[in-house]
């Protein structure tokens, strides 16, 4: 299954109402997807402070996936728009300080789209496999 012999670890912050439910649906529909993600459920994607993303990356996570409701469909009506701003900031700062921004991904996955969830996870895992391991994970000094 591995392309270059290593299994990445991906931290996924999923919103309770859409993306996590989609993950649930993917499970109950018995859709197979890459086992590389570690899911952390949050009540809303806007709960994801940019610090969470940076902490995951600096601690050695190979990728960070943030999943929320599709724009306009947020359970709290506008949380995901704030989430987008926060992710934009985290990515900009990561780039500014020379971290790899490709390791951060923000995706909108509605509750009813289990297959899409599986697709996004597969796609992201493949991409991270291509990029390789996160060097911050090996560095003692960080």
């Amino acid at each position, binding site marked *: 299954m591995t392309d270059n012999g290593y299994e990445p670890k991906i931290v996924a912050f999923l919103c309770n109402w859409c993306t996590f439910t989609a993950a649930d649906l993917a499970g109950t529909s018995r*859709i197979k997807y890459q086992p590389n993600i570690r899911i952390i459920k949050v009540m809303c994607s806007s709960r994801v*402070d940019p*610090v969470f993303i940076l902490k995951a990356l600096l601690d050695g996570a190979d990728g960070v996936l943030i999943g929320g409701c599709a724009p306009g469909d947020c359970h709290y009506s506008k949380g995901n728009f704030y989430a*987008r701003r926060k*992710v934009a900031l985290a990515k900009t700062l990561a780039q500014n*300080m020379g971290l790899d921004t490709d390791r951060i991904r923000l*995706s909108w996955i509605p509750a009813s789209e289990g297959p899409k969830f599986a697709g996004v996870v597969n796609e992201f895992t493949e991409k991270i496999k291509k990029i390789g391991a996160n060097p911050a994970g090996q560095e003692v000094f960080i």
Partner: protein
Amino acid sequence: MDKGIWIDGPVNKGVMKFLKGLLENNAMDAVLMPGKNKTGDSNAWFFLDRDGLDESASPFPPVMTTQGAKMVSYLTKKNGSWKKTGVLLRPCELRAVIELAKLKQVDLTNLVLISYDCPGAFPLKEYLSGNQQELDMAFETSLGTQTDPEGLRNVCSICSNFTGSGADIEIGLIGADSKGFWLIPGTEQGEELLKKTEESNSFKSLESRDKLVEAKSVQRKEKRETTLDSFQQSVNGPENLMTVLSSCINCHNCSRVCPICFCRECYFDSRALNSGADEMLRRADRKQGLRLLPDLLLFHMGRMTHMSISCVSCGACEDACPADIPVSMLFTVAARDTRKIFDYEPGRDIDEALPYSVFNFEELKNFEAPYTRQYSKQ
């Protein structure tokens, strides 16, 4: 405003006379401004009435001991001032006051914000260990001539918002050539107050000043960009960043003195990051060792995500750092890019909403990752 009251004579004396005049005719009840203690060897902030003004006030300190915005917040955080209070601020302090007002940490009721063309400030440590009288003199001269004094702080020498624009009353010094200064109204409140001063009929055109301000601004912006570019080169990547930060002693002084870091409990002081030995050992296992205290880089980068948008580049953090880390330069570099995405400038306008408090439906599409492949139908 294209006109201001011209006042002849030395700046220090003139400003004191102007403030005293406002207090005497009851246009203001008190002032919050920098001052010196009786022996004259320390700069601090004072809340003064008419008599106190004579005793302690020293309107233009050559160093920034505590950030003025913090003082204003201290005074008005819980409710607005019921005394009409004039506040004399550096331009960066003024911007921080405006940011804090947006963050509901400052109540602007009854405050009259007064600011001036700032020539910068000396590093606190060098001032305290150096010849203070000499530095005081050097600062006073450069305040009049508006030339950079020698030994300015790094952030000050690349500051491109050096005028007090945005204040109720602006003290114009650029172009005055040590002969005097302008009092320029910035808001209706400021205009009304200026009408109550003695010299209210001596309005003079500001054309010569405006041209010089424009020229200096262009020159400073250029210098700012090139300096920040080269600094960014030197800290790019975790390795270079850690070289700069490695002397950090984790005292969190930088966040304590920061006017924008107002949280009562900081995430980085909380126990959220304080995991047990189990977790620490596992982390150490993963990378054949662990630097202690851990999460040093996270602290600094985390602060950048929390407050870089509102960072006014005042340099208080760098003054407070016991390990001589160029913290304020780091933050200025980070802030340059983070505020660009939201087209935001801290302290520019009180009506400009904080980027985290608003959004547009159609924006920042390049930060979303669209799902590119058609998933299989099952």
